[in-house]
């Protein structure tokens, strides 16, 4: 089943680079990536859809949490993603 890694981050392109770089190095499978500005323009929501096992996602979350520009990380399923009404940009 697809799972979604959700993170609230500073709205800067290098945050996306940091997170994707970190996951790439660990051969983390990414089906889709989206990052959108929130109502508060200083923040963005990042969502990565993946088929990784929960254990691998959990480990990735621990690493993402350490990034200074990241405020919150959680996992979602696909239904929650629709509710979140976020747009795919990449």
């Amino acid at each position, binding site marked *: 089943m697809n799972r979604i890694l959700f993170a609230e981050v500073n709205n800067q392109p*290098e945050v996306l*680079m*940091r997170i994707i*770089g*970190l996951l790439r*190095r660990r051969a983390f499978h990414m089906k889709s990536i989206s990052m959108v500005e929130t109502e508060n323009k200083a923040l963005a929501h990042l969502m990565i859809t993946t088929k990784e096992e929960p254990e691998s996602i959990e*480990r990735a979350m*621990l*690493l993402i*949490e*350490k*990034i*200074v*520009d990241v405020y919150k990380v959680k996992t979602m399923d696909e239904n929650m993603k629709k509710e979140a009404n976020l747009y795919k940009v990449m």
Partner: protein
Amino acid sequence: MKLTGAEIVLECLKEQDVDKIFGYPGGAVIPLYDALYDKMDHFDHILTAHEQGASHGADGYARSTGKVGVCFATSGPGATNTVTGIATAYMDSVPLVVITGQVPANLLGKDSFQEVDITGITLPITKHNYFVKDVEKLADVIRDAFKIAESGRPGPVLIDIPKNVFLEKTTYVKKEVLKENKRACTSSNKEIIKAADLINQSSKPVIYAGGGIVLSEAANELYEFATKGNIPVVNTLMGLGSFPRDHDLSLGLVGMHGMRDANLAVCGSDLIIAIGARFSDRVIGIAEEFGPKAKVIHIDIDASEIGKNKDVDLWILGDVKRVLADLTDMLSTKDRKEWLEKIEDFKVNKEKTGFHAENILACAHKVLGDETIVTTEVGQHQMWTAQHFPFKNPRTFISSGGLGTMGYGLGAAIGAQVGNPDKRVLHIAGDGSFRMNCNELATVAKYKLPMITLLFNNQTLGMVRQWQKMFCHKRYAETDITQEVDYMKLVEAYGLRGEKVDNLLDLEDALRRAIQSGKGTVIECLLSKDDCVFPMVPPGAPIHNIILE
């Protein structure tokens, strides 16, 4: 008060009590050095021979003093030359702030002269990095950088500043640095009680002590903890010095080149207490075989280390200093005589004779003493030092553990000597590592640093040769570096003292003369290229699979 960006950088460094800067000027940082020209009464700037030396210098300064190391470099090659130093610091959790110049904003993205995307390059090897486009934000960025570098698990932070930002002016308001608790303790008392119960029930526990103890200044707490419970201590490379090696409970280095008693104690234990250590592959060999019957307690400040390389039964997140103090209070006093006697049987008591590394290090320790700060390069000499130099105090063994950077030790020794002018600094190098960055002898000469280099010259890249001997049927591909450099002439060219020795008596005399001279001295020790580092565990094998000779 209106100041330029360059002046703001220096004022912010003053706020942080920085007075030593390692660096190298260049086009993009001319305004920064111009501002520094007026502040030479406050700052000691150490001009190295190469930016890599500056980054290792800041690293050695940080590791030996516990302060944040600061390094300046210009844009382009200046910045890329610091990359190995930054990666070295990142792998060993060393707090650095590296400030690089960048081309002016109007030239960015145009492949301008000396333009490189250094924040992009250093993304995976910094704890955080900044590209400062706006002079208004500069002061807060620098303050945040120091906070990030030294809080929690420390690490390097890079700040990239375009030349125009150094020149623009804005209002600067001085801020007092709040001495916050750098490492919050997040675990609950419940976990500490559970851990204490596990330890009190254990009959064969082992403490696996890592660099986190040094970073957290927790050596005293570790001593109280280990001696109250009579628990033997094995050390990682980064953890050497966190527990006195001459204590009966100290088993020394563990892992690939670990001591036999240290490795076998871990394998036979029923409880491993990992403290500020990360279960590196060079330590654990095969994860499942590292204490196969042992429960594992992991104490660390970094949640992402828990369960990364080895499954654990219980973990405590937080500052090891505070956790150890709490844990010691709940510990029962036990003698664990049977377990300690069993470990005693694991020891190998085989003394080497002649001019061998083990005896050279014993001689250096006898002459130079316990307070000496020892830095190493990477290779056989590094492992011999880790095995045989009896470190007693934290921050006295400075070596590139995670990245394994040949060429690290001389720069680091310069940093350690600058940060500890009253202490003896001994730099131990192999000939392969030494020739990588020996240009920094110019820095030793320039600042009249009285440090001593012990150059282990076996005319080969010894550690690789050892692997070729053991695992590649003695096919010595490109590891011989025979007779290519006359090191004594090289040392003389830098105006330093050089001596060449091939026996212990001459070595002792040479060391005493070096101390007496107060001058930077290189003592070349001629060794056999067939000397190998033992014990050794073959790569990919469990750590009880020890080759002794």
